[in-house]
């Protein structure tokens, strides 16, 4: 069975059906793209997959577990992590604290142990700290560990958000338009980063993107949606030539 198995997902806002008959299947370590014109419902799909929105109907199975109706924080422990289209960092906290907060679930010491600074506190804090530094190092952000997240340059903020998502220990990472607002150089760097993540962490990645070149360049499988419905599924070559896709992007 696939890592993420989504069947006939549907959501209605009032009378409006925003997403309908959405299905997708992602294998372990697969890199899948989800593209579509503005307002096609891509982020809405993400929000359903991560528990922010409750779908009207349909099933989502992550690693064999049904996750529909679970709260977002709970879905994280089933192994899904995400980033946001408009970066949502903990701005007034340090870079390393941003990562350590995401490591929260892997730490077990209780409040009493924390207050009295018992050995479990020191041990786990040290592990968390070392792990966070290691993670930041992978993204070349170790020197920034103690600066406030809001003071990072834009590209680094995007990277930090990805690092933070990885710190939750996911099986699948969902990136919501990671290249938005980046210049070509930064986009290229990002592509390398995504590739690195997949190989280093051995996880699946679902990527929402506007930047066609990025998606075409790295994704093995692409799903295209428009007006909340899937119009095409295939590899980059197939997508490029599909008449429906061309119509959706360029009009009649």
């Amino acid at each position, binding site marked *: 069975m696939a890592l993420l198995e989504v069947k006939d997902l549907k959501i209605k806002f009032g009378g409006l059906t925003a997403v309908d008959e959405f299905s997708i299947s992602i294998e372990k370590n697969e890199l899948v793209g989800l593209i579509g014109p503005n307002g096609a419902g891509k*982020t809405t799909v993400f929000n359903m997959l991560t528990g*922010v929105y409750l779908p009207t109907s349909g099933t989502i199975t992550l690693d064999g577990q049904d996750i529909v109706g679970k709260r977002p924080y709970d879905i994280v422990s089933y192994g899904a992590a995400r980033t946001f289209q408009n970066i949502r960092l903990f701005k007034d906290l340090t870079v390393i604290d941003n990562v350590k907060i995401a490591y929260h679930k892997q730490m077990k010491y209780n409040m009493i142990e924390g207050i009295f600074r018992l050995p479990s506190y020191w041990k786990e804090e040290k592990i968390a700290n070392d792990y966070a530094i290691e993670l930041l190092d992978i993204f070349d952000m170790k020197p920034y560990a103690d600066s406030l997240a809001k003071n990072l340059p834009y590209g680094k903020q995007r990277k930090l958000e990805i690092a933070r998502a990885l710190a939750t220990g996911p099986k699948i990472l969902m990136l919501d338009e990671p290249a938005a607002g980046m210049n070509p150089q930064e986009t290229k760097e990002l592509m390398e980063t995504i590739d690195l993540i997949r190989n280093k962490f051995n996880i699946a990645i679902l990527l929402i993107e506007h930047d066609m070149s990025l998606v075409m360049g790295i994704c093995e499988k692409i799903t295209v949606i428009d007006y909340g419905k899937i119009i095409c599924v295939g590899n980059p070559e197939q997508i490029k030539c599909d008449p429906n896709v061309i119509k959706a992007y360029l009009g009649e």
Partner: protein
Amino acid sequence: MLLIQQLINGLQVGSIYAVIALGYTMVYGIIKLINFAHGEVMMMGAYFAFLAAVAGMPIWAVFLISMVLSAILGMVIERVAYKPLRSAPRISSLITAIAMSLFLQNLALFIFKADPKVMPTIIKNNPVTIGSLQISNITIITFLVSVVFMVILTIFISKTKSGKAMRAVSQDTEAAMLMGINVNSTISLTFAIGSALAALGGILYAIAYTQVMPTMGLLPGLKAFVAAVLGGIGIIPGAMIGGFILGFIETLTKAYISSRWADAIVFGILIVVLSVKPTGILGKNIREKV
């Protein structure tokens, strides 16, 4: 009979709450700020009326002077304390509003001293007797005056250009700005109207209870806010409905349960409403965009 008598009393208290709640709801609608100082503007309005009445002015002048001065006060408060914080975190402007409320209250304490002043009789109390019911003419006047102002406000907001500007700014400030609406003056106007209505509430309150004092704005202000939330904050008809409902609940509680518990019950209702339907009776649900 007692019940009908109480309902009539409730109508009087309710119309005062409704008038004050209108100002709360307008300001919240436009800048998303709970203007805690609103109750204190009402208190200042009552003092302005008191001073004018002591000076022997005719009744129309008492209302006019108090409402105009309060409108100016409201605009000044907005310009001095709230405008610099428009882009600041919500918590900062909320704290400023609380501080402003405290400041005005203590300013009044400083100027007018703590002892209550007796409001001169500007309307003679002539109870009207219908069957075995006694209705004070003040009750009738309070109700009529409030309803008239609510109707005027509703027409103003739905029909006039400035009223439309107000609605536009409350929907989307930036878009309104791009459409060429002067956002600053629209917000000022909102504060002016809201504060004038608060003053109206203050005068009616002072007439009903025949006294003015620096702390008189605190509880009616809070209750008017409860009324605004009850009806759905930011929604004008909601404030009116909420005001009347609250007036009825309060008088009935005082009559049939205990006057000592009345305030607790009012806040209890607020908590129940917020827990069950935070958007109030007429409110719609909105979700945060992710």
